[in-house]
C-alpha cells in the first residue's frame, strides 16, 4: 500500500476538564495551580505539535506561532483550545503521538512533585506502606486529562480557511458531545479525596509527619488524590491566600499609620513560618505588591480566628501565636482599624469574541487575534496586581482573580476598558466593525467560606452580567456585583449595563457619598424602612395586578397613586428620617443617588420601585466595601442583615 502524500489540514485539540478541574480546590493554590497546570498542558500540546511535525509543516494559530526556531514561551498563558494549520499525510497518527507525549509530560510533572516532597528530608518509600501510593497517583494523573481532536482539509492556498474553520469547529463540537472516559482505579474502604470525590486518597496518614503535612498544606487526616498532590506540590509558590487578599487594605493602612506595629507582626510571622498557621509568600518575583507583609496567615483575623483544633503547635509556638493576636488587637486599637474578613472574587468573560473570530477570514488575522488575547491575559495579570489582587488565570478572553474590597470596582473598570480598547484597536485595524466587550461579575464574600462557594458565586455574577437585562434578550457587556454575608447564603445582586456607565455614575458616587460622610453606612436601611412603611411592594403588586386584569375595574385609589406622589412621599420621609448626619443633606444625596438609577425618573411605578430596591442593595454593598476603606469615618457597628450566628 502506498503512502498518501501530505496535504494541508486545519487541526484542533481541546483539552479539559477546565471549570470543574480548576474549581476542585480547598486552597487558592489548588485553584491557581489547577489552572496553571491546564495552561502548561495546553502549551505542551502545542509544543509537541511543533516538535513532532516535520519542519515547516505546522503553523500555530491559537496559541500564536513562536518565532522560527524558538519554543513557545513558558510564562504566557495558553487557552485549552489549540488550532493550527498542518501539512501531513496522517493527522490522526500525529495527534495520537502528541497525546502520548502530553501524558508522559504529565507523569513527569507528578514525578517532579514527588521529588520535591521527598526533598523535605523524610524519605519517600514505594512499598505498600509508603507515605504516598505512587502507583495509584500515577494512574490517576494518567487518566485525568480529557482530550478531543478534529481535523479538516483546507485548500493549499488557504483560500477556504473561513469555511474550513467553521466545519472544523462543528466537527470538534460533534466529537465533544461524546464525553468518553475510563474507570478510575479505586479500592473499597479507601477514603475519597477532599478535592475530587471521583478519586481515591493516595496518602498514608499514619506515616506522614507534621512536616509532610505542612508541605502538602493538609489538614490533619485530609485525604488527597494524586492529581491534587500535583496541584499542591507542582510549580513554584506564586500565590497568596484569600485571607491575605482580604487583609490587604488593613495592611496598607497600618504600613502608613503604624509601621512599627507592622514590623512587629512581620517579626512574629517570621518566627512562626515553620508552623501550620503562617506560610511565606514569595514576593521577590511573583507578588511584589505584598512585600509589606509577605505572609499568609489567618491570625490577623482575631475575631474570626479558628485555630484549627487539630493543629499540633508546641507551647513555644502557641505563645508566639498569642503574642501575634495581641499585637493585632493593639494595632487595631491604636489605629482604630480592624482587618476586614471580606474580599472579592472577580470573573470576567469577553462578549462577542466568537462573532469577532467568525468575521475574520484569514489565518493571519486569527493569529493577530491570538496575539492580542495573550497580550490581554498578561495585561489583566498586571492590572490585578496594580489593584493589590491575586491573579488566578486568564486564558483568551477569560479572567479570574481575587481582589481586596477597596480596589475591586476600579479594577473591574480598568479590565473592561483595557479589553474593549485592545479589541477595538485590533478589529479596526483589521477593517471590522464588531467590537468585543467584557462582562464582569464581582462577588463579595467572607474569606472563610468554602472556595467552591466563592468561585461559584463569582461565576453566577458573571452569568448575570452576561444575560442582563433578560435571559431572552441579553445585552451582555454588563457589570454585576453580588454580596453574600457569611451568615446568610442569599446574595444581593446589582447589575448595570455598561451603557449606563455604572462605575462613574453609580458606584463611585455612592462610594464617595459614604466616604465623605454625606450619608451614613446604614443609610440603605433608612430607605429600606421607608419602602416598608410605604408598603411599596404590596402597592406595586396591586397596581400590576390591576393593570393586568382590567384597569376599568381597578380600585379607584390606584388611579391616585402616581409616581410623582410616590417620589414626593419618599423625599419627605427621607428628610424626616433621623440619621446621625444632617437629615436634609443626607436626603438630598440619597435622592441624587436614586436619580442616577435607571427607571427612577420614569412614569412606570414598577420601574421606580426597582430603582429604589437597586439603590438599597447598592448602598448595602458599598457599606460593606467601606469597612475596608480605612480613611473614611469610623463605621457605626450594626448587626449584619440576616445574621443568625
Amino acid at each position, binding site marked *: 500500500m502506498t503512502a*498518501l502524500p501530505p496535504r494541508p489540514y486545519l487541526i484542533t485539540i481541546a483539552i479539559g*476538564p477546565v471549570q*470543574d478541574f480548576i474549581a476542585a480546590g480547598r486552597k487558592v493554590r489548588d485553584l491557581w495551580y489547577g489552572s496553571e497546570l491546564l495552561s502548561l498542558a495546553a502549551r505542551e500540546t502545542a509544543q509537541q505539535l511543533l516538535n513532532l511535525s516535520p519542519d515547516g509543516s505546522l503553523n500555530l494559530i491559537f496559541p500564536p506561532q513562536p518565532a522560527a526556531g524558538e519554543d513557545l514561551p513558558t510564562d504566557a498563558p495558553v487557552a485549552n483550545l489549540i488550532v493550527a494549520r498542518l501539512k501531513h*499525510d496522517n*493527522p*490522526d497518527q500525529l*495527534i*495520537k503521538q502528541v*497525546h502520548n507525549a502530553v501524558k508522559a509530560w504529565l507523569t513527569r510533572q507528578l514525578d517532579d512533585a514527588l521529588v520535591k516532597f521527598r526533598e523535605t528530608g523524610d524519605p519517600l518509600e514505594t512499598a505498600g506502606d509508603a507515605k504516598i501510593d505512587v502507583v495509584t497517583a500515577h494512574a490517576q494523573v494518567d487518566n485525568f486529562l480529557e*482530550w*478531543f*481532536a*478534529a*481535523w*479538516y*482539509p483546507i485548500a493549499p492556498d488557504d483560500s477556504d480557511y473561513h469555511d474550513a474553520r467553521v*466545519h472544523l*469547529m*462543528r*466537527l470538534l*463540537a*460533534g*466529537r465533544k*458531545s*461524546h*464525553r*468518553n*472516559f*475510563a*474507570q*478510575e482505579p*479505586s479500592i*473499597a*474502604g*479507601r*477514603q*475519597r479525596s477532599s*478535592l475530587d*470525590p*471521583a*478519586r481515591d486518597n493516595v496518602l498514608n496518614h499514619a506515616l506522614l509527619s507534621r512536616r509532610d503535612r505542612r508541605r502538602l498544606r493538609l*489538614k490533619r487526616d*485530609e*485525604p488527597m488524590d494524586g492529581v491534587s498532590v500535583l496541584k499542591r506540590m507542582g510549580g513554584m509558590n506564586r500565590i497568596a491566600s484569600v485571607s491575605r487578599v482580604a487583609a490587604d487594605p488593613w495592611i496598607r493602612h497600618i504600613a502608613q499609620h503604624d509601621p512599627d506595629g507592622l514590623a512587629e507582626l512581620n517579626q512574629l510571622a517570621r518566627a512562626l513560618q515553620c508552623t501550620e498557621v503562617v506560610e511565606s509568600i514569595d514576593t521577590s518575583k511573583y507578588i511584589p505588591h505584598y512585600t509589606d507583609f509577605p505572609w499568609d496567615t489567618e491570625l490577623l483575623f482575631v*475575631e474570626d*480566628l*479558628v485555630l484549627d483544633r487539630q493543629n499540633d503547635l508546641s507551647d513555644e509556638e502557641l505563645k508566639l501565636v498569642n503574642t501575634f493576636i495581641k499585637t493585632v488587637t493593639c494595632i487595631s486599637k491604636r489605629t482604630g482599624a480592624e482587618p476586614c474578613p471580606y474580599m472579592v472574587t472577580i470573573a470576567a468573560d469577553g462578549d462577542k469574541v*466568537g462573532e469577532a473570530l*467568525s468575521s475574520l477570514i484569514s489565518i493571519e488575522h486569527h493569529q493577530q487575534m491570538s496575539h492580542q488575547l495573550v497580550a490581554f491575559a498578561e495585561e489583566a495579570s498586571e492590572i490585578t496586581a496594580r489593584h493589590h489582587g491575586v491573579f488566578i488565570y486568564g486564558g483568551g478572553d477569560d479572567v479570574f482573580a481575587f481582589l481586596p474590597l477597596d480596589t475591586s470596582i476600579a479594577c473591574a473598570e480598568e479590565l473592561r476598558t483595557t479589553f474593549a480598547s485592545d479589541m477595538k484597536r485590533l478589529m479596526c485595524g483589521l477593517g471590522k466593525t464588531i467590537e468585543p466587550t467584557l462582562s464582569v461579575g464581582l462577588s463579595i464574600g467572607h474569606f*472563610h*467560606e*468554602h472556595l467552591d462557594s466563592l468561585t461559584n458565586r463569582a461565576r453566577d455574577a458573571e452569568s448575570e452580567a452576561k444575560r442582563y437585562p433578560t*435571559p*431572552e*434578550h*441579553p445585552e451582555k457587556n454588563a457589570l454585576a456585583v453580588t454580596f453574600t454575608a*457569611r*451568615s446568610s*447564603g442569599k446574595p444581593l445582586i446589582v447589575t448595570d449595563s455598561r451603557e449606563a456607565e455604572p462605575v462613574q455614575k453609580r458606584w463611585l458616587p455612592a462610594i464617595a457619598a459614604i466616604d465623605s460622610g454625606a450619608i451614613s453606612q446604614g443609610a440603605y436601611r433608612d430607605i429600606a424602612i421607608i419602602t416598608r412603611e410605604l408598603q411599596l411592594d404590596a402597592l406595586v403588586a396591586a397596581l400590576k395586578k390591576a393593570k393586568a386584569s382590567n384597569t376599568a375595574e381597578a380600585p379607584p385609589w390606584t388611579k391616585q397613586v402616581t409616581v410623582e406622589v410616590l417620589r414626593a412621599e419618599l423625599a419627605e420621609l427621607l428628610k424626616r428620617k433621623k440619621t446621625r448626619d444632617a437629615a436634609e443633606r443626607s436626603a438630598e444625596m440619597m435622592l441624587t443617588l436614586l436619580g442616577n438609577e435607571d427607571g427612577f425618573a420614569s412614569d412606570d411605578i414598577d420601574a421606580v420601585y426597582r430603582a429604589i430596591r437597586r439603590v438599597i442593595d447598592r448602598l448595602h454593598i458599598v457599606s460593606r466595601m467601606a469597612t475596608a476603606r480605612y480613611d473614611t469615618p469610623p463605621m457605626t457597628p450594626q448587626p449584619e442583615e440576616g445574621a443568625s*450566628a
Partner: protein
Amino acid sequence: MSEHTPNGQPPLPSRTYLLQPISPLLFRDARPFGADAGAHAFSLPWPNPRTVAGALRTALIGASSPNPTWDKDDAVAASKLLIDGPFLMAQHEPGGEWIPYVPKPDDVVPMRVGDDKRLTLMTLRPQEPTVIEKSGPGTDWTSAPVSNVELRPMDIAMDAKPEKKAPAWWPLEQAIRWLATSSGDADRAILRPNPQGNPHVPGLDGLMETRRIHVGISPNTGMAEDGILYQTQHRVAPMTPFDKDDDRHPALALLARVHGTEDHLNVDDMLMSLGGEGGMVGLSTLENTPSIFDFPNELAQAVAHADNLTRLRLQFLTPAIFKYGTIPTWMNDGVIPGWRKRKVKVKLVGITNSRRQPVSGWRKQAGSRATSLVVPAGAVYFFETDAPLTAELLQALWLSSVAESNLHRSDGYGIVIPGLW
C-alpha cells in the same frame, strides 16, 4: 400488587412506591466533611439509584422483619429486593395526578439564534457514514477493546452557544414524543408556547436547592464556638404545589418500583429515612399505576408507520456503570441485554452524554465502596440494527436495565427507554 418481569430476572411480584420528601434531603458526594470553619457538605441534585435502593430495602425489610435488630436473614432478604428507579414525579394541582418526569435527553440542545435570540433546538445525530477518504475530515477516538462499536461524531448544524437555562427534566409524555420522532424535527416535537406566548421547552428544574448555615458546638462546653460556621447544601421537594413569581411550582416526589416477595411488599405507607443526616420521606402507594411503566402506544404507532427502520436510540433514565467508561461490554456480543432472547444484533454508532460522575457509597461493615464513574442519566446511545424495528422489540427495552452486572441492575442503574432516529 402487579406482576412484572424485571429484565433478566424471573417474574416477581412488584409494588410501586411514591417517596415524598418531608425534610430537606442531603445526598452527599464522597468528599469528607467535618464541622470545621468554612466546611461545606455538598449534595447531589438527585440521589443515585443505590441510595434510594438501599433506603427502600432498609425500610421495607425493617417493617416486615420480626427481628428488632438487623440480622443476617434480613440482609439476605434485602439483597433480593430489586429496585427500578428513582424517577421524578410532579403534582401540578393539589390532590391532582402525579405526572412522571425524566432527565432531559442529551440529543437535543436548546440554543438562541438570530438577532431576536429566538429559541431553537438543535438535534444531535451521528454523522452519516459517508465514504471517508483517508485524507478527509476526522476526529480522534480512543477505542475501547469492545467489538461492534463504530462511533461517529454528532452532526452539528449550528454554531450558537447552548442555552443554559433549560429544564433538566422533561415530562415523560414529551420525552416519548421525541423518541417517536425519527425525523429529528425537535422544534416541532418539543417547543410549546409559554404563558407569554414565547416558545419554550416545557419541563422542570428538579429538586430545589437550599443551604443551611450551622454553628459549631464545643464538645466540652456544649456552647457555640466562635467562628465555627459551616454550611450544608440540601435538596427540597415542595409537598404541595404553590405559585411564586408568576410561576407554578408543583409538588415533587420520587417514584420507585420494588420487585420482591409479597412478604416484603406489604407496606402501604410509612415514614422512612433517605440520604444523609436522617432526611425523612413519606412512603406511600399510588392508586393508579403511573404511566411510566406502560409501553406507550405513540412509540408503537411510530414504529408501525416507519418502513424497515433499523436505527434505534436508547435514552438513559438512570446512570449507567460500564467497565470501559461509556462503552458497554455487552456490545462484544452485539446484543442489547433486553434482546437476549431475540435474534437482533446491533452496532453502536454514536453516543452523546454529559461528563462522567462518581458513585461510591457505604457498606455498614466494610466502609466505603470503591468508586465507579457513571454515564449520567440523559445520555443517548445510537444503534443500527440488523433487522427492522418492531413495537415488540421496543417494548422489550422499555424501562429495562442495560447495566452490565446483576448488582447494578438490581439497584436500578442503567434503566433506558427506546426510540427511533
